[in-house]
């Protein structure tokens, strides 16, 4: 059964040939214990009221706004779609109503099933899949589509800048050591993940380069969790070669990451395909 696309008629559709399409999984709109029942008996409109996706979309909207300020005919904008593998009609309409109610700039809603999940995204030209469900993130990465974690924002001020944080440990490892360090099964999926990561980085880097050093609504950061300094620098240079000059870099070399991540406050946390987030206790 194919996916069903519902277009959000409340907002102007982006040019999907040029836009940077991001798919957000429905669970990112809820709290951790998110369920389908609204918090109060009141309204279907409360369904999409919690979860990390809201501050993310607000930050995206700010980037788009600034891009349009520079060029009103800009087509290289962020385009957000919602993807959901729940095909119960009442729930679908709850989601659509809710998005409109909150004025969220979600251009399309894609309702599919588990089988058509990744394909629906690929056919919608999705460049990045965001979710709070780590298993879905890993599955998607392994199919060659960049996928990342949408993080809960703690402080209110964080809405100002859209922040991407990339984990770079495996990127900076010298080639000759990679074979030794990784077990037999990993190298292939690692290659797939890194190839798709390269594409994503290029596109984000392109978006970022539209703004100057000061006052950019978009910010990119690199963190290495376990590596020594030269690995972190190598990852930094790799990103630079791929077209993205990160502004912040953190080499933890084993320092517990949770406090540092809480300070960085990224919206999006992109693993490097090697040490998936579920392997790092502090990130789960």
């Amino acid at each position, binding site marked *: 059964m194919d996916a069903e696309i519902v277009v959000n008629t409340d907002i102007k559709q982006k040019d999907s040939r040029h836009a940077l399409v991001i798919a957000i999984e429905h669970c990112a709109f809820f709290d951790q214990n998110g369920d389908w029942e609204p918090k109060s008996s009141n309204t279907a409109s409360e369904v999409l009221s919690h979860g990390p996706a809201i501050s993310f979309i607000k930050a995206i909207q700010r980037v788009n706004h600034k891009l349009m300020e520079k060029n009103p005919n800009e087509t290289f904008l962020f385009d957000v779609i919602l993807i959901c593998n729940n095909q119960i009609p009442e729930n679908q309409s709850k989601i659509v109503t809710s998005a409109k109610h909150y004025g969220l700039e979600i251009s399309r809603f894609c309702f599919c099933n588990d089988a058509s999940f990744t394909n629906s995204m690929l056919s919608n030209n999705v460049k990045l899949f965001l979710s709070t469900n780590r298993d879905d993130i890993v599955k998607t990465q392994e199919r060659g589509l960049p996928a990342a974690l949408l993080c809960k924002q703690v402080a209110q001020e964080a809405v100002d800048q859209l922040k991407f944080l990339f984990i770079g440990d495996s990127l900076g490892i010298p080639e000759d050591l990679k074979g030794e360090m990784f077990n037999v099964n990993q190298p292939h999926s690692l290659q797939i993940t890194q190839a798709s990561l390269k594409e994503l980085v290029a596109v984000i880097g392109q978006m970022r380069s539209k703004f100057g050093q000061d006052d950019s609504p978009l910010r990119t950061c690199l963190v290495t969790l376990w590596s020594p300094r030269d690995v972190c620098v190598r990852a930094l240079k790799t990103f630079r070669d791929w077209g993205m*000059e990160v*502004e912040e870099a953190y080499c933890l070399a*084993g320092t517990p990451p949770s406090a*540092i991540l809480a300070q960085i406050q990224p919206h999006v946390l992109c693993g490097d395909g090697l040490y998936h987030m579920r392997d790092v*206790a502090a990130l789960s």
Partner: protein
Amino acid sequence: MSEIKPAEVKDASGEERDWAAAKVFFDNLKSKRPRPPKSCYAVTIAVSSRTLFDMTMERKIYEDQGLEKYVEYQQQHEDEPLKPGAAFPFVKALMTVNVKLRQLYPDSEELFDIVLMTNNHAQVGVRLINSINHYDLTIERFCMTGGKSPTGYLKAYMTNLYLSKDSEKVQEAIEEGIAAATMFTPDMEIQLSDTQLRVAFDGDAVLFSDESEIIVKQHGLDTFFEHEKANENKPLAQGPLKCFLEALGKLQRKFYAKNERLHCPIRTYLVTARSAASSGARVLKTLRSWGLEIDEAIFLAGAPKGPLLQKIRPHIFFDDQMFHIEGAKELGTIAAHVPYGIGQKYHKGQLIEKTGKTK
């Protein structure tokens, strides 16, 4: 857990798993450099880029031409190592102590850990790391915030001492309860020991609170002497650098335990304007009540600190009064200002500088 760092055991088993994985990963990379210690056991010193390296020229470019030109300049000169800065000798001395600690205690995580803590742009960071490589410094951890204040990260990296050229950041750190000081480059270079780390502290408003200094400033020396004698047995309250002295003491005891007291590569000094006879006892008794030792206590009774410090040759000297900082740096001592307490209201022209009036 060590007493150097507060025990924060929110997810102990998760953290242990992460640490085990980190160790394996690091060891697999076969780096020639030693693995950095576990943060909760280490004495972590966070240094800014401008204290570690001399970046006066680059700073001028930033101030005159703005951020874009500054980053561009740094990227163009990425492969040129920077010259050493004020904190460089201190960092080298910390590394020397680590070598000896590792020899005596090969499995211990109780070591100095040096973190580069800078609000520089990560692209500028490449030049910083290249410079660190050039001098072969054991700095594995860094934090480059790309413009945001790094003080929020100090606790996250479990910092015990923060050194910066920016007094505002230092003040923020002290207000957060982290030992911190603003570093000054001495006017001349003097030869420092390369086998022994030497750290000199002022007493009031550095190791101790400023309660006694307030009395001097507001009521004069005579009242101060009476007060100190009367309260000789009442310990002074802690100052911002007390915990750092404590951390140094903990590492010193590791050498004593291996019969290395005579050759201990860490030596601490108290250099105070107090006089031994009239106000010195309280200071020594306070230290004793805290269970802390200081190797040498020098009571100057108001004499200038510069010439004495020149004899001691510390890798760093902490004082709360700019008057003493200036005196120290004139004669070649690496001085670090602790912006704490009532002394801050009295410098730059408002200082009471008549001889005999200072403690």
